[in-house]
């Protein structure tokens, strides 16, 4: 094993020879010297996906834990400008950055550009250990028992390019939560780790609760606990045993739709699964030491910048009393554990950042933070180490590039997957609906309504995380007049993911035309606002009245499609489209 630098810029080493090889394989593929399927499996392992549009590709840059620096933000912005025709990158719900519509021929150069800042797309796709996510407050959070980032990085370093993880039955998604609030939503992951402290023989030891076998899509499962406490020193070995058990479960390879680890855990039960892990820990590989110290990564730069000595108190500037700033100041700022410093959430509509915005964020972290930010699973960005006296300046800068909107993590902060804009599996245009819903829910001032989450996926798989939303939607279709297809959505209510008690939303029996969804959200909100008891959250409300009680609220909209004519035409078209809707779904590449 190569010695890993504990203080390197990147967590996963960038290997130039891997990109040279990729470039050669592209040439061989273009020359017809490699079979398409073999090339597809190869390119997926390097993070390159096919798209709905046959001539272009998507590349997913793996950002472990969403950790970025000013340099990486600049490089990501440069990629958007040079290689992405739409001049933008997309923050995903897995804390990656994706670029769409990139020609295959440009990929190697793109990889070299991000390689300069030690980022890689290696194993961002395919049946591998995918990007690991965490809470953006890791390291600055008031409630975390210890900083999990070195261990999260160690996990990624151990299992990316590892011989056991190169062709597993299916992809494998991991989350590390810094505290019991479980902001990384470990329960919905293949493998989830939550920081714990346990006193053993009078010594306080760092460790993790380990959960395994969660997942969403068409078979939602919450991950049961494999171990209540595993000391950090043993964490890699236990995780490796889990991965080896998964990799050896060849019966999973028969049907790719039933090949995630949740299927195995659900079938045998967590106790039997634990026995399998313990049997695995007796094997030869486990007799060798895996020293966590060899894999740790620490970000020495994630500390306050030297105090520039700007005055704490100064004359109020005119914008400082504006409602926009006041709103932002209330919703988007979080006090760090470190006194006097703030984390600043940047609300990124639908996760799309232009090249200019990437550079602006880099610049802001240089001038007002300490060159550090985190991408979040809510498709936003968190700037770290901002001093109180600089908050207004930061807002002004953000506002100047269209990123000054308040209400982060609120009802207006709608999550959506890329949908039919680019994804082969998409049924509907989730991005377009996301924008329409966000516009329809502006202006609520009831804090309990503001606290609701709306999440949209373009298909049942759930990249938009609709399973954990207060109100979630996934793309569908039904037949309207003359058996014409109507773009539509299935509706889910009552999910929860904050505060450590993850619960999946339940589907209600209505199917809404896509164009009616914004109004449907307004109706649900109005019903909740009118019927709820004092201080009852939406999720508590749904638990009390039952999801079914929401069906009559939307019943008249369900499967409603007017007679097909010029007036009803928009109903037969998806959001932001001007052609009649038709379900077009390609072969997925996830399992190749």
């Amino acid at each position: 094993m190569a010695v890993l630098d504990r203080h390197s810029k990147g967590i996963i080493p960038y290997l130039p020879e891997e990109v040279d090889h990729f470039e050669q394989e592209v040439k061989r593929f273009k020359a017809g010297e490699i079979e398409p399927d073999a090339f597809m499996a190869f390119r997926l392992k390097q993070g390159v996906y096919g798209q709905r549009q046959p001539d272009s590709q998507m590349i997913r840059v793996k950002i472990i834990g969403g950790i970025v620096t000013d340099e990486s933000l600049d490089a990501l912005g440069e990629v958007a400008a040079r290689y992405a025709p739409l001049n933008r990158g997309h923050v995903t719900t897995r804390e990656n950055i994706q670029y769409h519509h990139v020609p295959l021929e440009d990929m190697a150069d793109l990889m070299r550009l991000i390689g300069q800042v030690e980022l890689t797309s290696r194993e961002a796709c395919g049946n591998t250990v995918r990007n690991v996510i965490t809470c953006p407050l890791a390291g600055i959070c008031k409630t975390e028992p210890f900083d999990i980032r070195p261990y999260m990085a160690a996990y990624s370093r151990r299992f990316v390019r590892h011989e056991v993880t190169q062709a597993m039955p299916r992809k494998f998604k991991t989350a590390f939560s810094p505290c019991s609030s479980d902001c990384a939503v470990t329960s919905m992951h293949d493998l989830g780790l939550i920081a714990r402290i346990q006193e053993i023989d009078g010594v306080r030891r760092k460790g993790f609760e380990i959960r395994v076998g969660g997942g969403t899509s068409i078979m939602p499962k919450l991950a049961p606990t494999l171990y209540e406490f595993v000391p950090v020193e043993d964490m890699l070995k236990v995780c490796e045993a889990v991965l080896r058990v998964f990799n050896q479960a060849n019966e999973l390879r028969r049907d790719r739709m039933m090949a995630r680890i949740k299927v195995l855990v659900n079938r045998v039960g967590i106790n039997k699964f634990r026995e399998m892990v313990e049997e695995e820990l007796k094997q030869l590989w486990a007799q060798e030491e895996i020293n966590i110290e060899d894999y740790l990564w620490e970000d020495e730069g994630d500390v306050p910048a030297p105090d520039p000595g700007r005055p704490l108190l100064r004359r109020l500037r005119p914008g400082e009393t504006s409602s926009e700033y006041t709103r932002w100041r209330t919703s988007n700022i979080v006090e760090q554990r470190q006194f006097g410093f703030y984390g600043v959430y940047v609300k990124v509509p639908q996760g799309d950042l232009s090249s200019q915005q990437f550079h602006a964020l880099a610049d802001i972290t240089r001038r007002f933070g300490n060159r550090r930010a985190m991408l979040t699973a809510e498709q936003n960005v968190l700037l770290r180490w901002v001093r109180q006296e600089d908050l207004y300046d930061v807002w002004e800068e953000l506002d100047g590039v269209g990123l000054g909107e308040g209400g982060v993590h609120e009802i207006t902060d709608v999550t959506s997957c890329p949908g039919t804009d680019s994804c082969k599996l998409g049924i509907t245009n989730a991005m377009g609906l996301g924008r329409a819903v966000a516009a329809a829910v502006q202006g609520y001032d009831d804090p309990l309504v503001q606290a609701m989450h709306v999440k949209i996926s373009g298909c049942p798989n759930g990249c938009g995380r609709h399973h954990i939303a207060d109100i979630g939607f996934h793309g569908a279709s039904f037949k309207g007049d003359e058996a014409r297809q109507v773009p539509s959505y299935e509706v889910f209510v009552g999910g929860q993911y904050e505060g450590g008690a993850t619960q999946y939303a339940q589907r209600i029996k209505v199917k809404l035309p896509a164009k009616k969804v914004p109004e449907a959200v307004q109706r649900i909100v109005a019903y909740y606002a009118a019927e709820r008891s004092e201080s009852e959250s939406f999720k508590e409300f749904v638990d009390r009245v039952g999801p079914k009680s929401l069906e009559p609220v939307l019943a008249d909209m369900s499967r409603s499609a007017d007679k097909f004519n010029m007036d009803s035409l928009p109903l037969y078209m998806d959001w932001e489209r001007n052609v009649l809707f038709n379900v077009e779904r390609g072969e997925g590449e996830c399992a190749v």
Partner: protein
Amino acid sequence: MTYIVTEPCIDILDKSCIDACPVDCIYYDEGSDRMVYIEPGECIDCSACVPVCPVDAIFAEDLVPDQWKEFYDINVKWFEDKGAIRGRVNEIHPIGTPPVNPLPA
């Protein structure tokens, strides 16, 4: 690709799959059919129907068990000639024979 409904559906007709299908591609005629059929041109291979079937009757087309291979044609051809397919279903699984898998209690 498409998904295929096989013999265990006959006389069970649970219809959970119809409820789960996001694109309404599962059909049957009330009173005339003993099982449901997936329209292969409309199926998007999402497999949402598979885990909800109480009698494990639905398979991806390349995973249909050997003894039920004929159900590929049965699914496809029902959309062309319902009468013929109903007759064939009655031959394969005569009326009055118990279902392949009983509904779970």
